[in-house]
Structure formats: structure tokens, C-alpha cells
């Protein structure tokens, strides 16, 4: 270790992988992984999300999963929650749409209304 900059480089890299242990991540992406979700391809959707986050080097998002939301025909569904903002639910999210949502919602902070599923 020769400089503080060397130390901080290691720190940033390690922090990135530990992000899921922090409760402070800006975006929380929740994939519905009930039997219905998995049957509709939620696993492929989740893999696409993780892949896209990695590719784009996005640090402030964590991916987690939940059970069936009760709208099985809309699966695979994902929800994106942010502190102090309304949680957005997307329906029929294929891997391609998932990538689009990451680019739109997480990278550019724009809700993709055409994929939004209105829970009420």
C-alpha cells in the first residue's frame, strides 16, 4: 500500500459487492418469485436484471424477491421501490423489457408507463 488512493480503490471495489448488505441502496428491485412467477419466466427476468446492473456498474440498487402478488396472469412482475417515492409495479416483464426498465427507471429515473401495472 503506497498511497491513500490505492486504499480507496480497493474500498470502492469491495463496497460494490457488499452493497446488498446495506439498507441504504437507492433502488430496491423486487422480483415476484412465486410458483406463478417462476413458471412465467421470472428467473430469466431476474438474471437479465442482475446482468444489466453489472454491465452498467450500478452500485445503488439491490435485487431481492418476493412471493406471488395475486396477479398471476401479469407475471413475471417486478417492483421498484425507492425511499420517499411510490413503489412502481411492472407486469409481464420479459428479460428484454427488464433491461429496458433498468435503463429507463434506474439509470434515467424515468418510469416506463407502458409497462406499469396498476395495482389499484
Amino acid at each position, binding site marked *: *500500500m503506497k498511497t491513500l488512493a490505492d*486504499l480507496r480503490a480497493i474500498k470502492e*471495489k*469491495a463496497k460494490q*459487492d457488499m452493497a446488498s*448488505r446495506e439498507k441504504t441502496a437507492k433502488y430496491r428491485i423486487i422480483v415476484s*418469485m412465486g410458483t406463478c412467477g417462476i413458471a412465467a419466466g421470472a428467473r430469466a427476468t431476474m*438474471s437479465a436484471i442482475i446482468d444489466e446492473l*453489472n454491465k452498467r456498474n450500478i452500485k445503488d440498487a439491490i435485487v431481492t424477491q*418476493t412471493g406471488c402478488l395475486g396477479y398471476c396472469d401479469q407475471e413475471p412482475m417486478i417492483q421498484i421501490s425507492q425511499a420517499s417515492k411510490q413503489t412502481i409495479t411492472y407486469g409481464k416483464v420479459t428479460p428484454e423489457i427488464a433491461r429496458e426498465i433498468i435503463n429507463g427507471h434506474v439509470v434515467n429515473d424515468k418510469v416506463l408507463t407502458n409497462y406499469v401495472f396498476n395495482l389499484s
Partner: protein
Amino acid sequence: MHRIHILIAMDAHTIAQGAHSVKDELQRELSLAALTDEVRVVETGSLGIYNKGVVLVVFPDAVYYAGVKVEDVSEIISEHLIKGRIVERLQYADIPETKEEEGKAPRFGKQVRVVLKNAGIIDPDNIEEYIAHDGYEAMGKALTEMKPEDVINTVKESGLQGRGGAFFPTGMKWEFAAREKSEEKYIICNADEGEPGTFKDRLILEGDPHAVIEGMALTGYAVGANKGFVYIRGEYKMSINRMQKAIDQAREHGLLGKNIFNSSFSFDLEIREGAGAYICGEETALIESIEGKRGEPRDKPPFPPSVGLWGKPTIVNNVETLANLPQIISKGAAWYKSNGTEKSPGTKVFTMVGNIKNPGLIEVPMGITLREIIYEVGQGIPDGKGFLLAQMGGTTGGILTSEHLDLPMTVENLREIGAGLGSGALLVVDDSQDVVDLVKNFVEFFNHESCGKCTLCREGTGRLLELLEKLTDGRGELKDVDLIEDLAKVMMKGAFCGLGQAAPVPILGCLRYFRGEFEKYVKKPQVAQAAVA
């Protein structure tokens, strides 16, 4: 990126309950489910949950599972990791909410985590995780921006006192060594934790070994030492292994070795293993032991900061003291003083044992009351029994009774009543226990551990044990109780080192508050005779 991190507590407690097999099963099931790219299993230190079997926590959901058996693993994976459904039958919900305020230490209910901030959160075998949690920042700051005297002044200002039990001001001790002109000086980490009921140092070493390394390097820089020894109790195999791994990693990263951070400061560490003698926790006996001699205390003065290891100036600091240092240097003295009281700043790590619902490792701010520790952090005494007494600070610790429940626990308050915080063991005793039997148990321990160098301790502990046995066998007389008290007082004044001087503390404490219990043993035969008549 792994979307899920499973932290599994790997400390001596959970390993004894099968943590290794559970971890192996997790790895096996994860690879069967093709989840190894998404899920990372991390070994970590104690999660602060005891007597509950194997404990793990699943992030990002922060769901704790306790009592996890090998056969439960596939259910956790198929339900929680794949379908996102918490396995409620294994969930451990009794986790106090964590609060983290800006610039303050994280709070878990009444607990405040400074020393334990990384324990159960990072993988202690991975230096990068320590670095991610601000590790080695203090060392970088000290070596690039501070002079050695600045480091000493910050520590002095923080009011940090030695956490081994004596509560000597750390900064002042350093100053003594810094003033000495010597080519060679040494830093020793005292991890010969032998006080019965105390296991805080073990869990700090197992959970966050790099904090201790960084603390030692800061000490070395402050007093001008380039070499350190970590003297770890030989039975602490896991602490030794983790520490060795941490030292190796620090060397690989150039955080130990020559010209750290391009400065003129070089520092390296070696581990020395103790061989199971209680007395070697006493700093001069420990030094003798490192020198390869029989572990017996030296005459003092001179004290180790002037004449220590191989006759050179030496700083001996406790594990917990050292683990406090990195944060004091990086966040400053004022931050450290924001916890605790004016004269007793900071936090203290305790191990709570005995008749308590929720035993284990806790960290609380100084000045907390015994009632808060026992009834809030420890959740009270089990089986509806009452509180009889608490012994604070290991076997040599003072006795506290119900009249002390609301006394703020500070160094000065406890000193006033003839007790001390000591090594951090808190033994809670309920009202169904026999005080005399308890005292006999303490004395048996001292009698076994007395090194035999001075007569008062060698003979005194033996005679005390005889007198106590006489009492419990029903052969005692009232004057024996007085004799026990006299002998204890003489030992306290005349014994050569801390062992013999402190051994009488709990005996005198019990006599002071429970003399009637001792006298009852004398009267018992008469009671029995009266019944026959």
C-alpha cells in the same frame, strides 16, 4: 455482483453447534440449484446470538435464522432464496432494531457498536471487506497527515482507558514509552484472555482481526516501535488462525512491512501463543513468557513502558483497547467522547453469563445501569427467579447487589463501592443460588491458578479454601468467618501481583453483603440438633 449474501456466524459457539456442516450444505445446495453466481456465502464473526445453534442472516432482506440444521438448508434455499418466502419456523425475530444516525455509532436497542461495528457484518478472513468498512483509513491518515505526537494527543484527548480491566489512561501510557530513547521498542497485544466468563477478546479477534492490527500499528507509530507481538491464549485456535490470516493479508497489501504508505514507518507483527496459565494475562508475566521464561510477574516499577520486553520500552494493550483506536483516529476524540460519561468515555464490551435469559456478547455505553443491562439487553432472569447478585469483571470482580441496580456503571462509581468493570465479564446470579458455594468456587480457581511465587497468594488461597470447606462441611465456627475476612484483607495488601491482590475482592464483597449466609453454615448443625431434640 451477488444479489444475495448469506452471512453465517463462524465463532467457537456456532462451530460447536455444526456451523461448518451447515455452510458446506449451503454451498452444495447452492451449486445444485445453480445459484452460486447469484448468492454469496460469507463466513463472519459472532452475530451476537447465543445458545440458539447455528445462526445465519440473509441479505438484502436482513432475515435472521437461528438453530439451523443441515436438513433445513434445502428449505431455506428453495423457499427463501428462490421463492422469496421467509422460513418462519427458523426465523429469529428477536433482533433489536438497528439505528444509525449520521456521524454516530450504530445502535441496537440499548447497545452501541463501536468496537463490534464490523463483527457479524464483514468476513474477517477478507481484508477487502474490512477496507470497505473504512478499514486502514486511520492508519493512512496517521501516516500521511499526523505526527506521532498528534496521534498520542488525540488518544489522550479521547480519554480512552485500558479495556483489560485496569482502566489506565491509554494516551498517558503511550507517552511514557514515547519519551524513552531506545532503538527498539515493542507493542504487545494482550489477548491472553483467561478470566472465567470473559470471551470478548476472542469474539473481537474472530470477528474483526484487522481492527486489532490497525490499532497496533497506530500504537507503534505513536510511540516509535516497529515490532509487535500478539500474545493469544493457546486455546483460542480460531482467533490464532484468523489473526495469522489477517497478518498475512495485511503484509500482502503492504499494510504491514516496510515504509507503509510511503512513509518512513515500518511495522510488523508476530503471534505468540500462551500455554494456558491464568497469570500470563498479567503484563509482566506475559512479557516473561514471550521471552521464553516461566510466566511469573516481575517487580514493578520499572513498568513495561520504560523496561519491558527484553528490557526495552514496551506497550501492552488489551485487544478491546486496540480495536477502539482506528475509529478514534479517523473520527476524532470528540466523536469517541459522544458515548459514555465525562470521566468514563466510550463504550464497553461485556460478556454476560450466568442466570440470564439472553447471555452473550454486548457492547453498551459507559454509564448504563446494571438494571438496563440485565433487564433490557439481557431480557431478565429466567424461570421467574429474583436477582441476588452480579459479579462484574470476572472471578476477581466486585460484587453488586440489588442496591446497585440503578448505579450508572462508570469506572469512578464502581471504584467507590470497591468494585470495577474489570475484564468485562458480567456474572448474573439468581436468588436460588448459594453464596458460600459460589465463593468456594472462586477460591478453588485462584488456588489452582496461583503461580506460587509469593507466600501470601500461594498459602492464602489454600487456607481460604480449607476454611470455606470447613464451613460447607458443617465443621465451621463463627470465628472462621472472621478468619476468612482477615486473611482476605491481608492478601489484598500483601500479595505480590494483581492475582493475589484481587482474589479477595469477591470474597470480601460477598461477606459484606451476605455475611448472614456464611454464618448460617455455622448455625446449621445446631438447627439440626434442635430438630432431633
